[in-house]
């Protein structure tokens, strides 16, 4: 048994932990003796994680029972498939992964090795279940980066190419036609009357006497959604992105209620994306497949932006109305816009400090 792990490890019948000389005589894994033995020691870290976070608190019998039930279901599944002689190596490995995933910690508190381990598990799990390979990253925020966004209301023509690009890039549920971005068609001369604006128009655009304004998650620097989350499943990263750990989210939707900008979306059903349309370039905090009952939202395409690329909406916009960049770089285009154009943000008086500015030519 590996005693250096932060969370409880279920080792189904493994006697020796040296990968190549395992009892099953294979080196390909699947016998449960090969997996995840090389995690370095992280016991010294102060942060509680996984199993400890869940169980190392004072709780009454009823709460403990409730918490254990979910885990037992998984455990039972794991045991039944591992002890059975007829089950394949694959399903044993699946059960092992499910167990590890059930008891992993909050992503925010994970060390880089733990982040890598969970990402590897998710990639392997996808491979086992769908038979397809995905690429998933756990890239952290870079130093000296604070992402910001500017939207030119005089340029947007309401073509909605950004919405399409976003849905494809971020693997949003096709059944409920979820979209992070909303483009509001607003009548000129009436101000920002969002209640009178139309965000689902279908006619030739731009329509006479109207202008277009896009909203999405504004990645507030003082995000109210983060404040209200009871389980700290959403937080602001160092580079300013407000992200969600889909595996830690309990689906209470407090954040959805707290967001003054309608930036958050909830998965009422299991999100479905046709296999050939799944974007396989994924990030743990970004466009990896979500499950039923968790929140999701725009992440400024964390899988793209953290590797130097523009978010999908910026790239897709045919009018150049969308500008993205590093707020800490005095020579960046976003800084030029902030310093040279008359910019404003929505509901600035709330003190949420969105990192999403609007401007006009």
């Amino acid at each position, binding site marked *: 048994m590996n005693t250096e792990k932060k969370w409880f490890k279920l080792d189904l019948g493994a006697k020796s932990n040296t990968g190549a000389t395992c009892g099953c005589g294979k080196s390909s894994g699947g016998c449960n003796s090969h997996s995840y033995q090389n995690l370095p020691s992280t016991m010294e870290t102060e942060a509680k994680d996984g199993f400890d976070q869940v169980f190392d608190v004072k709780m009454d019998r009823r709460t403990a029972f409730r918490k254990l039930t979910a885990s037992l279901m998984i455990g039972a599944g794991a045991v039944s498939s591992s002890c059975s002689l007829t089950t394949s190596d694959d399903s044993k490995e699946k059960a092992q992964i499910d167990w590890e995933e059930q008891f992993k910690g909050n992503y925010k508190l994970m060390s880089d090795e733990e982040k890598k381990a969970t990402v590897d598990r998710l990639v392997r799990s996808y491979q086992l279940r769908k038979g397809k390979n995905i690429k998933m990253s756990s890239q952290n925020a*870079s*130093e*000296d*980066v*604070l992402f910001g966004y*500017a939207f*030119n209301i005089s*340029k947007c*023509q*309401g*073509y*909605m*190419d950004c*919405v*399409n690009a976003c849905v494809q890039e971020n693997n949003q549920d096709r*059944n*409920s*036609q979820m*979209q992070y971005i909303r483009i509001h068609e607003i009548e000129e001369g009436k101000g920002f009357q969002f209640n009178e604006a139309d*965000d*689902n*128009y*279908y*006619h*030739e*655009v*731009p329509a006479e006497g109207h202008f277009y304004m896009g909203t999405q998650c504004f990645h507030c*620097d*003082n995000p109210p959604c983060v404040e209200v989350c009871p389980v700290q499943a959403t937080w602001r990263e160092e580079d300013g992105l407000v992200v969600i750990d889909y595996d830690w989210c309990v689906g209470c939707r407090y954040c959805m209620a707290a967001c003054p900008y309608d930036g958050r979306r909830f998965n009422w059903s299991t999100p479905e994306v046709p296999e050939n349309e799944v974007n396989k370039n994924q990030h743990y905090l970004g466009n990896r497949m979500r499950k039923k009952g968790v929140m999701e939202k725009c992440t400024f395409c964390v899988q*793209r*932006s*953290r*590797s*130097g*690329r*523009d978010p999908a909406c910026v790239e897709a*916009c*045919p*009018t*150049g109305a969308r*500008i*993205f*960049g*590093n*707020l*800490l*770089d*005095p020579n*960046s*285009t*976003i*800084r*030029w*816009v902030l310093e*040279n*154009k008359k910019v404003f943000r929505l509901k600035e008086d709330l003190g949420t*400090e969105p*990192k999403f500015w609007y*401007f006009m*030519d």
Partner: protein
Amino acid sequence: MKKATVYIVLTAVLSMLMTISCNQHHEAEYHSLKDKIEVESIDFNGVSITSEQYIGDITTVEVKEGVHSFLIPERKGQITSFPCVECHTEPLQDLQEEGKKKAHWDIQLIHADEEIMNCATCHNGSNMNSLQSLAKGAIDINHSYKLCAQCHSDQFKDWQGGAHGKNIGGWTEPRVVMTCVNCHNPHQPKIQSRWPSRFNTQKVKERE
């Protein structure tokens, strides 16, 4: 003697307390996002990430205008029948004669009024390889933005800063931006209206 010791101890304790409380209030260090950006970008030293790999296999030309320096896609290589003088060997009048094979017949100029602009506003009949400025100077086709900038000075300023136009690849260095003619057809620069690329039928159902 005793007083001095007490003072030293007190100062030490106070300074410790202050450091602790400062650490605790790290999140609220700034009054506003503006302050945060201002302070944290003082010793900005560039980032380790590059956008180079997302630019694709386009060749670029360097642009230096004022304080701005960036790259734009090279143009001449994209023009099918460049250099123009391969065909334009004789004066334009002779090429326009009846019975000769027609070229550029599909170009229609919808750009400002007829009395303000015609072909000769930008092209020089006796030097087709280059464009021509209003002051009859030659402008390299790779730097055609200079021609546009003669009238569209506001757009030119915004383009240099990054408020007009689109960048290619990513948000970080190297900065490659589309030049005017990558989005606007110089002969019909207005972007045409069209239908949105999406209609959300689920939203309609939900709002019924």
